[in-house]
Structures are given as C-alpha cells and as structure tokens.
C-alpha cells in the first residue's frame, strides 16, 4: 500500500461545463466597453480618471476587507472590478475623487461584503453606493451643473431634468436618434444607447444575463410611459424618450440583471423586470427624483426574495 499512487477523489459529477465567475465578470466588462469608451471620447481625461479611480478603489476596498476579516482573497473573480466599472458608468465625469472613493466604499463594503460577499448581497451593490451618494450629495448628480464646462456640440441639457423642471415643451428639440447615438449629456457610461444595447445583446446571447429581466424591464417602461403619455401627452413624455434617457438602458442590461439581487425563476423574472420598469416611470413622472431607475431597482431587489417564491412545482413534491 505504501507505493500506491495518490489519486484525486471527489464526488460526482466529474465533468464541468467550464464556466467561471472570472470569465463571466470579464464578459460583463467587455460588454460595458463600448459605452465606457464612448464616455471617454465625450468627456476625455476626466472620464478616464473617474473610471480608473472607481475600479481601482473598488478592488482595494474588497482586498482590504478580505485582509481585515481574514477571508480568502476574493478580488481575483473580478466582481469588485465589475462593481467599480458599473459604478463609474453611472456618475458624471466631473465627480470629485472623494465622492468616487466613498461611493465604491459603500458599494463594496456596505453593498456587498458585510452581507458575506459575492452572492449574498440582497441589493445591487452598485446601486447602494450610488443611492447613498445621491442622497448625501444631491448636487453631484445634477448633470446640468456638473457638465457645465463641456460643449459637445449638442443640446447640453440633461433630458430627464429638462422634462421634470420645464415640461414637455423643453424636450421637443431632442430626437430618439440622437439619444441612441449618444448625443445627450449624462453619466460617463449611460448615454451611448446603441453601445449599451449591443453590450446587452452580447451578454444575453452568451447566456450571462437573463433576457427575461431586460426585456420585461424595457416592456414595463414602455407600457407605463405609453399609458401616461396616452392619458395626457401635454405633461408626460412618450415611451421612447423614457427608454433612451437616463439610466434606463444600463439599468435594463447591467443593473437589474445583477445575479444575487434578482430572481431566477421565469415568472418572477418577468414580474421583477416589469416592476422595475413601472416603478422607474412612476418615479420619473410622479415622484420627486429626476431619474427613477436607481430606486426602482433597489425597491424590486427588496421584493425579490418574495417574488422568487413563485416557482414551478418540484417533481414528486408531497404536500
């Protein structure tokens, strides 16, 4: 028995399809690239700085937490990098460094790590970080003020703010085509419609995000905005305006689809996505905030465990 070779012994199954968290997160970052690169071309070095600070500090916060809590180092799965990247895509290019660092701190530590790290967060960490910043320093997210010094050759007014404060007549100069091509001001990575859609479709085709959530999110926005528009088109903007402005697209493809805080069963995914869409338009049209995506998704995150109880009956289940 002494000379016997030592073998690897483990439980079945002995095959794996080869997927990994690292690969998945890399793919999310690849999908986000078109929108981020477009942001770089629009806002230049400020945007590059913002994105770099967010990604690096997100990784550093997670590493520090790993070290202090004596856990296994988990930054290798790139989840922190994705959180940092998505966070940076949601802030204006002129965000001061301390705000970015605070945001990633809240996102990583309070949004994710204190719940036990990847997979245990009840809310989308990116949105937790963003929501805390939005509440704490409201002016940072006044895109008109933040981007005052830029002139990119199109109407330098944040479309959702214009709609909120000056009514439907103020958005007549915008066209859906210009939104898709990225001719609107906003956060670094959320203005380039076609780029985000391409990224989102890539993620859907690769099976990395769940199409049910994205599609029902957009459908929820469309239908709700359409009904508002139908009821009074002198006050409420049309559905396409809502789909292509603010955080809607990035929310539908990158934020609402975060694994841990969204449902996995078919019907719950539809309810969750539609709920996000409906809440978004309600907040935009009726609520106090200019954009409703952040709080709409956070609210549906809260409802997720309950919604996800709607599931098909297991075979052979005995009551």
């Amino acid at each position, binding site marked *: 028995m002494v000379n016997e070779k030592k*073998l690897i012994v483990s*439980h079945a199954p002995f*095959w794996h399809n080869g997927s990994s968290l690292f690969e998945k997160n890399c793919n999310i970052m690849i999908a986000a690239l078109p929108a981020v690169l477009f942001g770089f071309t629009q806002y230049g070095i400020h945007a590059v700085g913002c994105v770099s600070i967010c990604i690096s500090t997100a990784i550093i916060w997670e590493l520090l937490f790993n070290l202090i809590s004596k856990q296994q180092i988990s930054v290798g799965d790139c989840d922190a990098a994705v959180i940092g990247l998505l966070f940076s895509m949601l802030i204006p290019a002129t965000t001061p460094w301390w705000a970015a660092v605070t945001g990633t701190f809240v996102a990583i530590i309070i949004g994710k790590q204190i719940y036990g790290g990847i997979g245990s967060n009840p809310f989308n960490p990116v949105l937790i970080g963003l929501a805390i910043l939005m509440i704490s320093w409201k002016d940072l997210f006044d895109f008109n003020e933040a981007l005052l010094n830029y002139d990119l050759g199109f109407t330098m007014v944040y479309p959702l703010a214009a709609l909120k404060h000056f009514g439907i007549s103020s958005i007549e100069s915008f066209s859906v085509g210009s939104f898709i091509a990225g001719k609107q001001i906003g956060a670094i990575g959320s203005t380039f419609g076609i780029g985000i859609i391409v990224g989102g479709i890539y993620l859907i085709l690769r099976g990395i995000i769940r199409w049910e959530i994205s599609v029902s999110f957009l459908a929820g926005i469309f239908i709700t905005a359409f009904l508002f528009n139908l009821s009074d088109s002198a006050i409420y903007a049309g559905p396409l305006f809502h789909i292509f402005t603010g955080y809607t697209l990035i929310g539908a493809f990158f934020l609402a689809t975060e694994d841990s805080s969204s449902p996995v069963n078919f019907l719950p995914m539809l309810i969750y996505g539609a709920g996000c869409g409906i809440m978004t338009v309600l907040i935009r049209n009726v609520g106090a905030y200019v954009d409703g995506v952040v709080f709409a998704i956070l609210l549906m995150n809260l409802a997720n465990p309950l919604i996800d109880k709607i599931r098909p009956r297991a075979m052979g289940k005995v009551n």
Partner: protein
Amino acid sequence: MKVLKTMIKKSFLGLSTPRLEYEKLLTNQPKPLEILPQKNAMFFLDYPFEKNITQYLKEGDPVKTGQKLSFKNGRYLISSVTGTVASIASHAGNFNHLYTAVSVAINQNENKDTQFSKLSDSPSIDTVKDYLLSVPGKLPESLFTDKAKSFDTIIVCAADSDLLITTNQYILKNNTHAVKNGIDILKEITSINNIIIIAPKFLQEEASATGAKVKCLDLTYPSALPHMIMKDVLNRIVPAQKTCEDMGVCFISAEAVASIGNAFENNQIPVTKLLNVVKKDKSNVLVSARIGTPIDTIFKSVDIKLNEKDRIIIGGPMKGCSVYSDNHPVLSDTDAIIIQDSASVSLVSDNPCTNCGECIRICPVNVPVNMLVRFLEAGLYVEACEQYDLFSCIECGLCSYVCISKIPILQYITLAKHELGRMERNESDAAEEING
C-alpha cells in the same frame, strides 16, 4: 475505439441550456476487448465484515470459477476465477458504506464449478435468488423476495443511464437472444407480465425481437434515469421520499437480463462483465473482464498509464464515483471505468452561490437548487427537506455540471440525504430502546 464527441464545455452562445447527449453505440462497434484474469481478483459483499461472517470460507481455501461463496444470513458471492482465497477483510466505500472484501489469488488452471448446472434445468425464483443476484449487470434483490408481490411492472433498461456508457446497448444489439431468454424466464418465474424494454430509437428492432413491450428514449441526459423513465414513459410521478420500487416498478439492466438468459442456457453462472473504458485522450474502448478484475489489470491491457493525482471514476461522468486505489475491482454493476488526467480534472471551489440561476434552468425536476444549496451549506437539512424539495432530487448532477461557482451541489445533496437517513435511523433505534 472512438474519440469522445460529447461537448463538455459551455458553447460560445449560452442562451439555450446545454444538452448532454448519451453515447450512442457505433454501428460498426468492434467486439469488446477480452481481458483475461491475471494475478488476483477481489469480490465485494455488500455487508460489513465481522469475525464470524462465514463459517464456510477461510483464507487458503480453494475456489472454482462460478463457485458460490456463502456468508452469514444467506448472503453470497460468486467467484469469477479459480484460485485460493488470499484474504477476507473489511472495505469502506463512499459515506463509509462497509463491505466485506474477499481476495482470491488466481490459479491459471481454470476449473469450473458444477453446482449451478444441476439446478439450471428448470428456472425457479429460488435458483435465481440463491445463485444469480450478483451476475454481470446485477439483479435487484427485491424482485426475488416477498416484496416482489407488490411489483406490477419490470423495466428492462437497454438505454444506459449515464453518459459515455454503451454496455447495455451493446448487449441488446449483439445478445438479443440472451435478453429474450432472460425476459421469458423472468416472466415465467415472477409471473409479472408487464415487462417493458427501454431502448434508444436505433435499437428498436432488436428491442422488439425480445418479445417485451418496447419504449424508445431520446438520447438527452438524464432521460434514462429511472425517475425520468417513470415520468416520461410510464406517466407515473414518483413522490419524494418514495422509490420506483415503492411504485411497483422494478428496473433491471439489459445486461442482467441477458445474464439470466445465458445462465440457464449454458448451465453456468456468467462471470464476465462488459464495460466501457474511457482513456485519458477520451477514446472509449469496450472491454469484457471477469468480475473482480482489479482496475490496474484493465489499465495495463488498454495501455493506460496511471499518474499521481489522476482521477479514476467507476461508472459514468455524471453519477459515477471515484476511487482511492487502482486495486479496486470491477463489480457486477461497473458499467464504465473512466480515467482523467490530473490536468483535466475539474475541481470544485468554495465560492458561494451567486444566484445565477443556471441550475434552476437545467434541473429536470424543478428543484429550487439555488435556495436548497444555501440551506445545505449551512447544514440545515431538515429545512432543506421540508421547504426546498431535497427529496425530489433525482441526483442527475446537472446542477453541479453547470454551476458557475463550481459548488459541489450534488455532494451536498447526497450528504444531506445520507445524514437525514442516519438521523431517522437513530431516532427509530432510540424509540425502540425506550419501548423495550
């Protein structure tokens, strides 16, 4: 010999759930490679070893090929070789399941035992029960005891239940006559008339020739697992915590049925097992070897070099079990031996579940795996059983196969079932003690 075609990596486009296809027998499948017994053979009795487990057998006793080795409580083994008993010892398997291992040093002058041939003229339920339970393919004991009265259906499986395996398909295709004989004998001795043979579509003709009712399966895993056959073929759902046998359905492999047929036709107990050997380069060889042949003998015969940290799998890649040593013998139900090179061994990780939902989409029986695994990781087995359908799981392993966090989900599930079973036994033991 052929190279494995089954895709085991996720495809680039991942929108649709992956389909794992069962191995299909080649149309020009060469005859199995015959592996002759060499130095020693080992047999496992499914009963814990104890001092006086056998009064009939001791070390140094000669045994003949096909001889029945009797143990306590009517248990027995069939020696597949001629030689002398080298040792009788304890062997621990998965979850510390205890066996009695009998090792036989082989004598090359083969001598066949004749005890069975005296009884084999008229097949009876007792003859099968007393001599044939451990034939190649393995017979379910319950079919030949009092419990058999509750059975109304026998399913003969010519569709192999795990991936990469073609043994039962081969038996049906090339041994149709023996399968037919076996089915006729089963019908006669058990008086169960509803015998259904399950086969892949391309073997429909052979299946019809056996005289049993034929049902065809598609070749997508896990369609050939008993619970799925119950659901798709018989339209009967097995309730959680019940078995197919509780539903009156007994599953037998085509190989075991053919063994019955052969035993009574040739007046000898069959001792040669057919199995697939999958090499490191994923080529698949069909071999026939005596039950009890150690794995290393088989590896030598098919040119497999075992290295440190390789993985040896007994059975298929989804439901098999890996072993610690290449001394492990071929058992009556060993349908395949797979060797994986240490470089291609897929390891598990301690990442937590990220709720990606892959397992939910692939689970054939709708178990809420994402929730279940959280409870199992925390050791909350009772809650897992009551709220998250632990016992609905048919242990196909697809959830672990697709898990992006590489969680050993199936291992958690089998461990939980094992622990709950142990708790139940302990409780009933305690209750018995109290009641005297």
